[in-house]
């Protein structure tokens, strides 16, 4: 009974957590490279060096003594994002869209006092949101103004695109759309919906919410399918480049599309989740095995890898 279930998962090419850890993360992601992706500040600096665009960095708070100085660093900017450098799963991020009467207005419309912001920065520095509870830094970045492409299927917040890259080849992709339930956050475990992307066509497919497969956004009621993603090839290219820049062979790349700046690299993940398989309604394992069998010469440049991915990962089948 259980074995039959396991076999049917295997037939569907589903990648399980044990196999992901044992056969992809451990052999392909060197431990020494993890800090590059666990610390968003390091990722940012690295991306800058490789010419991959990221959201603008306004300021970094590294010590409790510097908390008070962060306002000066804002230099009158009305909108910004406050996030922990080592946070995981979107925790500890605050989006500020406006400032009124000395208060900060969050994206969800809540007014936060200066003291609360200070407290939050202090929390970040203490490492509350950090993956291993280590001391952390607080980043203050520019707010992203999402491109209109997903505006009809987004409830507040910023939708982002997750691409799984294996040995430099984009293997699977999805877009994560915030919902009312997810409080404008693009994290699936908070209730955002994941929508698979046909890599070859650069178009969305059906979506998946906690409840199961859906065709329309639960809050806006718009059709999720067949949205053409702008800059798609460029995004695939950025994702592919991320492998060269970090040396991580199995990588989750998170991108956002800014109205003015185009695609920006948001963060990298050395242990990307497996939910993307549900959003795509297909297993990842088959694609990873296909990549293993790909001709050696395509691995030479990101251009070739992206071209191979576009050619192979499209339509039904795989």
């Amino acid at each position, binding site marked *: 009974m*259980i074995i039959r*279930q*396991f076999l*049917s*998962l*295997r*037939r*569907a090419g*589903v990648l*399980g*957590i*044990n*196999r992901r*850890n*044992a*056969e992809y993360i451990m052999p392909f992601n060197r431990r020494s490279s993890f800090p590059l992706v666990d610390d968003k500040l390091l990722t940012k600096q690295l991306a800058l060096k490789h010419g991959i665009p990221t959201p603008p960095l306004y300021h970094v708070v590294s010590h409790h003594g510097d908390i008070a100085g962060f306002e000066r660093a804002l230099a009158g900017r009305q909108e910004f994002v406050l996030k922990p450098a080592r946070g995981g*799963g979107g*925790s500890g991020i605050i989006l500020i869209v406006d400032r009124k009467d000395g208060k900060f207005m969050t994206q969800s419309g809540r007014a936060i006092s200066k*003291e609360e912001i200070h*407290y939050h920065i*202090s*929390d970040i520095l*203490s*490492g*509350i949101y950090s993956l291993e509870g280590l001391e952390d830094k607080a980043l203050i970045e520019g707010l992203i103004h999402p491109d209109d492409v997903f505006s009809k299927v987004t409830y507040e917040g910023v939708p982002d695109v997750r691409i799984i890259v294996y040995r430099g080849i984009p293997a699977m992709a999805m877009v994560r759309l915030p919902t009312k339930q997810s409080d404008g956050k693009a994290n699936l*475990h*908070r209730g955002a919906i994941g929508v698979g992307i046909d890599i070859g066509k650069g178009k969305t497919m059906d979506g*998946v919410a906690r409840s*199961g*497969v859906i065709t329309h956004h639960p809050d806006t009621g718009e059709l999720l399918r067949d949205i053409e993603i702008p800059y798609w090839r460029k995004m695939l290219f950025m994702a592919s480049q991320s492998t060269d820049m970090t040396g991580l062979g199995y990588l989750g790349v998170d991108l956002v599309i800014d109205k003015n700046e185009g695609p920006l690299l948001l963060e990298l993940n050395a242990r990307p989740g*497996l939910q993307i*398989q*549900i959003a795509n*309604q*297909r*297993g990842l394992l088959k694609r990873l095995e296909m990549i293993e069998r790909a001709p050696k010469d395509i691995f030479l440049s990101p251009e070739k890898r992206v071209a191979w991915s576009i050619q192979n990962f499209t339509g039904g089948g795989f």
Partner: protein
Amino acid sequence: MKRPGLWLAVLLFLIPLVLIGYRVLRLGYPLFPTSPVKAWGFTLEIFFEPTEGNGKEIKIKAGLPESRSGQTVIEQRDLSSSLQFNLIPEGLNQIGVWSGDPERGRSLSYRATILLNPKQARKPKPPGPESFPTIIVDKSEELLARRLTERYASLKPPEKLKAILATTKGIWGEPLPEDNDLKRWSTIKEKYGTEKVLLLLLRSLDFPVRKVQGFILKETIAIEPDRWIAVWTGQKWEHVNAETGDLYDESVCLLPLMIGDSPMVTISGGKLLETRWILIKQTLSQWRAHFERIYRSGRFLDRWSLFGIPNQFQEIFRILLLVPLGVLMISVLRNIVGFPTFGIFMPVLMALAFRSTGLYYGLGIFGGVVLIGYLLRRAIDRLRLLLVPRLSFLITFVILAFTIFALIGSKFGIREFMAIGLLPFVILSMTIERFFILIEESGALQALRTAAGSAAVATITYKIIQIDPLQLTFFVYPELLFTIMGLLLLLGNYSGYRLSEILRFKVLGEKS
């Protein structure tokens, strides 16, 4: 077999196989150590008072049980922390001596477990010179005893003994002794009491005898020991009730504590207030049965056994050896089943703590502390404390909660509430913090699911480490740890699906 880990695992399985094979085949170890054992719990409690203004040390001596034919004393423990305790053999007796500063403590307590195994009775040794005590009576009385017993001199020792015992009931057999002698004898009996006249008669027929103080093994709380007379009949010791002159039959188990006339408990530098002996029947967990056998063996693997180390450390190792079993369970439940838990090893520590609190109390206390801690954590969230002081605050709260539980437990006599001191408080505090953050970030549903997962893993782990034969097997065969290491290597190589993934990816599986 492409992975080197598998070969290592096979090697790790072979080591215990060889060692256990040797122990079972050559040393005759049981493959599954079971079979219940009869045992008695012996407790001696002495309450005393030091002499006023007496700066001297107090010294208390008491006869204690000793291993002898058919019975083994194990797990002797002195529970009075204030006085120094020594065991000193004195003649035929094992004397416990407590000495020390009388200002600290007014009571002492000693505990031992006595194993009975009649099968292991050794051939009794013939008595030495100590078994011919002098009985101080008038010369004429002694002569009378001799005259009265002359008639039995030709009988075999067992019959001789029976004949003498019969006289205490006035049965002298045909022909009756002279009236005069009988009359005189009954006045002597009045004068000295049954015990002494019995001894007198037995001595006049040259029976080796011993006066014994101790207990007939039955559940009891006594303030005075039983007394009997041990009589050597050439082959074995017979035991005679000193008051009635009845012979104890074979089925009665006796626990001698003091042979000879000395009082059971003596004190110098103080005054005895009360002495209590408590005997309780125990169904002993089977650890001890093996202890006894292995302890006496000289074989290499027997001597290199955990049974050889002192008792209080054995206790620690009994628990320590369960930890690998616990972590093995965690590995299975997390990597093959896919339970979500708070922290990786928190459930093992919970399971270990449940050993002292019991499962339901343990889960209840755990849930209660986390719930109250969560409310507290919510309350102090507004205070904006830095991380480290905040966690320290929670730890302090958890310990405060334990203290209150213990006080409630002591008030209402709920032992389990007092035993929670062993619950891992640091982990509990971290759990409160994680629980709070999980509720904030992923919602109450996910947090409750994780809490339920932790509780389930802890319960399963607890149920497994509580299996008595399993515990004993690990204690007798510590080399089984290699097996666990091997299993963990195999688990570490498992890259198949988790059971939880059947549900998680059900949609995908159904499509194929």
